[in-house]
């Protein structure tokens, strides 16, 4: 079933986990390399999201809404309520940011529901050898988003509390003392206790999404391996059994995965809102 009929399951899976990149990376950090497939699908889905919502927004009236406008409003209201529940200040950026994250990440994840070989096979027929269709299984994509959020966290923390207030959060708590000398002595302990969870925020945010989607994709790939031999295996009863098993398991996993892709998009959005709300709070 795989595009180039790989001989083993191992090869098949490795083939599917390889990005369409301009060249082989030389190390763990190599900014001369780019994943064309991730960028392509990321931009494509950005256009899908922005385009559809822009169309709905342009035609939006306060009268009786169309069904599409209704759907868009449902999503917008859902996100708006989530933001309002968590964040009570005024910030023009936060709600649109949350909407963008929720919809975009959802669309990333939804690519996982497509049959694992569908788009790669089409790509192969036009001469593209590797294609990873789920942008959120690319650590670069998830990390880019969580890093952007991280930058916003720092920006709003400094904007709301001042540089002093921001630094005070790292040095003067959770251990605090009245005595100035004791205060200074407690700074290293506080620094370690505060900076670790702070740095962990963007890491956990991106790794959670990446891990869930990567695992989901891996399960689909493993199920696809069951019918790796193609038409050949329909000759035996065992082959048929594997085909049925793949169909049933993939269906069950796809249904379950619907929950995961929505949940992961939701978690990414909510955590972003929570982190930014915390950045606005004074201690």
């Amino acid at each position, binding site marked *: 079933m795989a595009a180039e009929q790989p001989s083993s399951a191992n090869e098949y899976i490795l083939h599917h986990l390889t990005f369409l990149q301009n060249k082989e990376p030389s190390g763990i950090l190599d900014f001369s390399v780019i994943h064309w497939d991730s960028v392509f699908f990321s931009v494509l889905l950005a256009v899908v999201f922005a385009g559809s919502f822009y169309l709905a*927004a342009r035609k939006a009236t306060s009268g009786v809404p169309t069904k599409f406008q209704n759907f868009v409003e449902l999503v917008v209201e859902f996100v*708006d309520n989530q933001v309002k529940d968590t964040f009570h200040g005024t910030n023009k950026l936060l709600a*649109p940011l949350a909407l*963008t994250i929720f919809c975009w990440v959802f669309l990333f994840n939804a690519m996982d529901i497509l049959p694992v070989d569908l788009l790669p096979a089409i790509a192969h027929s036009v001469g593209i050898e590797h294609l990873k269709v789920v942008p959120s299984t690319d*650590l670069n*994509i998830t990390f*880019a988003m969580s890093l952007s959020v991280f930058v916003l966290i720092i920006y709003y923390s400094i904007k709301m509390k001042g540089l002093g207030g921001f630094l005070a959060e790292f040095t003067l708590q959770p251990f605090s003392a009245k005595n100035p000398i004791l205060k200074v002595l407690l700074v290293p302990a506080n620094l370690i206790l505060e900076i670790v969870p702070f740095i962990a925020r963007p890491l956990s945010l991106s790794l959670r999404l990446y891990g869930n989607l990567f695992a989901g994709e891996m399960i689909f790939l493993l199920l696809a391996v069951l019918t790796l031999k193609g038409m050949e295996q329909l000759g035996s009863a065992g082959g048929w059994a594997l085909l049925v098993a793949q169909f049933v398991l993939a269906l069950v996993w796809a249904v379950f995965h619907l929950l995961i892709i929505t949940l992961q998009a939701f978690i990414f959005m909510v955590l972003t809102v929570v982190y930014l709300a915390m950045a606005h709070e004074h201690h």
Partner: protein
Amino acid sequence: MNINLTLIVQMIVFIVLVWFTMKFVWPMILGPMEERAKKIAAGLAAAEKGREELAQARDRAEAIVREARERATQIIDQAQHRANDLVEQAKGTATAEGRRLVEAAKQQIDLEASHAREALRREVATIAVSAASKVLEREIDPRAHADLLSKLATQI
């Protein structure tokens, strides 16, 4: 897996997308939604007001009808009174008139009777005189016996 240029590109796309959403999508969707919420609230308030006004109008109409009914009853009562009065009055007049007529008739009868009695008396006197003259065979001067005659006439 490595970190590469994709990260930078994705960050730029992300920033542009968020900017786009913030500028062109969010306010244009939320604006009409809030406007609609306001419209619905205004509509509900207007409906409530209309209902109140309707209730008030119904109360007013009921009051007017009640008043009219009272007034009608009053007018009917008055008319009945007036009719009764008229009947009573007519009855009174009629009774008085009847009594008067009866009275007049009685007087007439009395008058007639006294006239008749007078005439009779006179006749009786004449007859008596003529009878007496016949008895006496001479003429009696009625003038000479006028006193006697009138005394006689009153005795009859």
